[in-house]
C-alpha cells in the first residue's frame, strides 16, 4: 500500500490486518507511557484545508504516539491566503523534509492530486463528499469490538448520504467486511444511480429498524449546495431521527454510531446520544489507534522487520 485514499479498493484481508494492528495500538494507548518508537525520526504533516477538530487532533495524537514529529498546516495562516496554489503549497511543505501527508480538502480528489504531485505517502483525511477512509476504519473497529465481526450484521446508514464522505467510505468498508448495508434517507439526500454500490436504499426508516444491528446516524443540514433538501429540522427528526421511541424499538443489543458533530434533537435524541449503546465516544477513542495503524502501515514497515 503506497497511499491510503479510499475504502473502495481495499480487500477484506487488508482491512482486517489494519484493524488487528489497531487493536495492538489500542493496548499501547492504555499504558502509563502511551507511546512506541515506531516512527521516530519521521515527520508527518497534517494539511487541513478545511476546518476540523477531531480528525486533525486524532491524526496528531496518532503520529505522536508513534514518536513521529508533526508539522501542521491550516489555510487561515498559510501562504494559501496569499494566493499560493495547492500544488505549490504541497511541494513547498514536501521540500521541508516531510515523510507523509494527511490531507483534508473540500474538493473531491484533492488527495489524489497530491499523490500525483508528490513522492511520499498520502493519507486522505477527507475529500469533499467523497471519501474519509480512516473514519470508516475506526467505525468498523468500533463495531467489531462490540460484535466480534461485521459478518452478517445488518447496518443502516441514516440521513444525508448524498453529501457524506463518511457514508461513502463506510459503505464499501462495511460491505467488504461482510455486513449488509441499507441506506436510509429522504430522496433529496440519497445519491442517484447507486446500482454499483453494495447497498439497498429506502426512505422507510421504521420499516427497516426491527432487523438492524447497527444504526449509523449522519449529521444533517437543511440546505446543501444552495438548494433546499428537506422542509425543516422538526420534520426531519419526526421521519428520520433516532428518537427515544425508535431507540426502544431496536433489537436489545443494537448500537448507535454517529461521526460527530451531532445535532442533538435532530438526527439523535438527547438521551440516545448519552446511552451506553451509543458508541460515539468509543468511535473517537478508536480513531487514534486506527490512524496509528494506517500511519505505521505506510511508513513503519522498514523498521518493523
Amino acid at each position, binding site marked *: 500500500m503506497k497511499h491510503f485514499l479510499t475504502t473502495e479498493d481495499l480487500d477484506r484481508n487488508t482491512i482486517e490486518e489494519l484493524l488487528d494492528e489497531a487493536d495492538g495500538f489500542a493496548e499501547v494507548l492504555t499504558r502509563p507511557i502511551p507511546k512506541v518508537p515506531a516512527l521516530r525520526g519521521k515527520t508527518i504533516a497534517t494539511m487541513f484545508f478545511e476546518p476540523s477538530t477531531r480528525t486533525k487532533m486524532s491524526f496528531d495524537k496518532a503520529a505522536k504516539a508513534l514518536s513521529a514529529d508533526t508539522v501542521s498546516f491550516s489555510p487561515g495562516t498559510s501562504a494559501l491566503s496569499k494566493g499560493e496554489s495547492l*500544488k505549490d503549497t504541497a511541494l513547498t511543505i514536501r521540500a521541508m523534509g516531510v515523510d507523509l501527508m494527511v490531507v483534508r480538502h473540500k*474538493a473531491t480528489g484533492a488527495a489524489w492530486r497530491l499523490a500525483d504531485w508528490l513522492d511520499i505517502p498520502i493519507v486522505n483525511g477527507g475529500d469533499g463528499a467523497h471519501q474519509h477512509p480512516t473514519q470508516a476504519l475506526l467505525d468498523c473497529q468500533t463495531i467489531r469490538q462490540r460484535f466480534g465481526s461485521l459478518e452478517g450484521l445488518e447496518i443502516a446508514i441514516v440521513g444525508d448520504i448524498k453529501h457524506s464522505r463518511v457514508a461513502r467510505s463506510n459503505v464499501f468498508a462495511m460491505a467488504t467486511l461482510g455486513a449488509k448495508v441499507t441506506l436510509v434517507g429522504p430522496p433529496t439526500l440519497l445519491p*442517484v*444511480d*447507486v446500482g454499483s454500490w453494495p447497498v439497498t436504499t429506502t426512505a422507510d426508516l421504521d420499516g427497516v429498524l426491527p432487523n438492524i444491528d447497527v444504526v449509523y446516524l449522519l449529521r444533517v443540514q437543511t440546505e446543501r449546495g444552495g438548494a433546499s433538501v428537506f422542509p425543516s429540522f422538526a420534520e426531519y427528526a419526526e421521519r428520520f431521527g433516532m428518537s427515544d421511541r425508535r431507540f426502544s424499538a431496536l433489537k436489545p443489543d443494537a448500537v448507535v454510531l454517529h461521526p460527530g458533530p451531532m445535532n442533538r434533537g435532530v438526527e439523535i435524541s438527547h438521551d440516545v446520544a448519552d446511552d451506553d449503546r451509543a458508541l460515539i465516544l468509543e468511535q473517537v477513542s478508536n480513531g487514534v489507534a486506527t490512524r496509528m495503524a494506517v500511519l505505521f502501515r505506510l511508513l513503519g514497515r522498514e523498521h518493523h522487520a
Partner: protein
Amino acid sequence: MHDLILLNGSVLTSEGLRRTSVAIAGDRIAAIGDDLGDSKEAITCDGMWIGPALVDIHTHLREPGHEWKEDIASGSRAAAAGGYGAVVAMPNTDPPIDAGHLARFVRDRGIDVGLVDVFSSGCISLARRGATMSHFDDLWNSGVRIFTDDGDSVKDTALLRAAMEYVASLGGVVSQHAVDPDLSAAGFMHEGSVSSRLGMYGIPSQADDITIARDITLAEMTGVHYHVQHLSTASGVELVRSAKNRGVRITAEVSPHHLTFDHTAVASTDANFKVMPPLREPTDRTALIEGLSDGTIDAVATDHAPHAALEKEVPFEEAPNGMLGLEWAASVAIGVAGLDQERFFDRMSIRPASIAALEHHGRPLAARDHATLVVVNPSEVWKPATTASKSRNAPYLGMQMTGRVHMTMLRGEVTHVVGS
C-alpha cells in the same frame, strides 16, 4: 506553370467526390483534373481526402483579456494545425465582445496573424450580464453573424425572446450555451453513477434539455435561426430532431470531447475532463455520434477552451471548464465518429460555414476559387504529443487517434504541413 499539384487524392469538388488532382497557382485553384501540366511542386495524395478547409464555429481564442491562456496568434496556429481555414471566436473575453469595435479588433488581429480567417461572434447581452441587449446593429455592421453569451445560458426568457426577434430581423443566428443555470449552479460534472461515487454535485441531463426545449419554443415564436451549442445529451439530440422535422429553423453542434469521452473519464478526478456541459453517459455519446452521422447535428464545433496549467492543476471542482480541441477535431470526426469523406466535409466545413454565413469558406473545390483547402489522411494512426496552443489542457495528448490533417492551405499559402 502551377505552384503546386496535389496528385491523385479523393477530392470533394463542386461536382461531387472525384479521384483526381488539384493544381494551385497563386491564391487560386487553377484547375481540377487528371492531366494538369507542369508544376513547381507536386505532392502525392494517394488515399488522402482533399476538400475545403475546415470551419470552426465555436473557438475560444481568449484575446482580448486572457492572453495567458491563448491569444489570436497561438490559437490561429492551433487552428491551422487542425485543418481550419476559418474560426468563429467566442465573445466571452475581457472585455466581452458586445460592440462593433471589439469584433473588428478580433478580426483585425486574425488578419495580422494571417494563418486562419478569424471571425468574431458577439454577445447577446451587454457585458454578458444577461440583463439588456448588446449592440446588435453595431456588431452586425462589423461582420458579426452569430450572437451568443457562450459560457453562460441566457436565463431571462423575456430578454432571449427580444434578442431573437431583433437578431431575426438582421438575419443572424442566436446561439445558445444550453445549460439551465439553476439546475447546474452547484454542479461540477454529469449527475449519475460516477458523480454519486465521487460525492460531487451533479448536473442532470435535464439542465440541457429544459433550456433547449424552451428555446425551441421561442425560436418557433420569433422565426430566428436558433443554434444549439455543444449538445451533450441523447434527449437533446431528440429535441433537435423533432424540431427540425417540424420545420423549425434550428441547427446544432457537438464538440469533439462529447463525441470521444463520457463521464467515466471523470472518475480519475483529472481536471482536464472538466467541461460544460459535462461529459455524460456512454449512451449519450452514442446518440451524439448517431445524430452527427444522420445530420440531425449539423456541425462538429471544437469549443476549444484553453486554460493554463496552473488553472487546471487543482482539484477538479476548483478548475475552470473546458479543454482544447482545434488540433484533434478532424481525427475525432474520422476515427471516433466514423464520418465518411462526404459527411466529414459537410459537418466540418460546409454546414458550419453556412451557419456562420461565411461566403468564402465551406465550398467544395472548384477551379478559379480561392485555394483554401485541407488534405487529410483518413487512415493514419498517430499519437499527438504536442500542441500549438499556449495551454495543454487536452486529454488527447498521448492518446492514439485515427485520421490526421496532413496539410492546410489558406488562399494558396500553406499554413500547416505535417512534419514542419
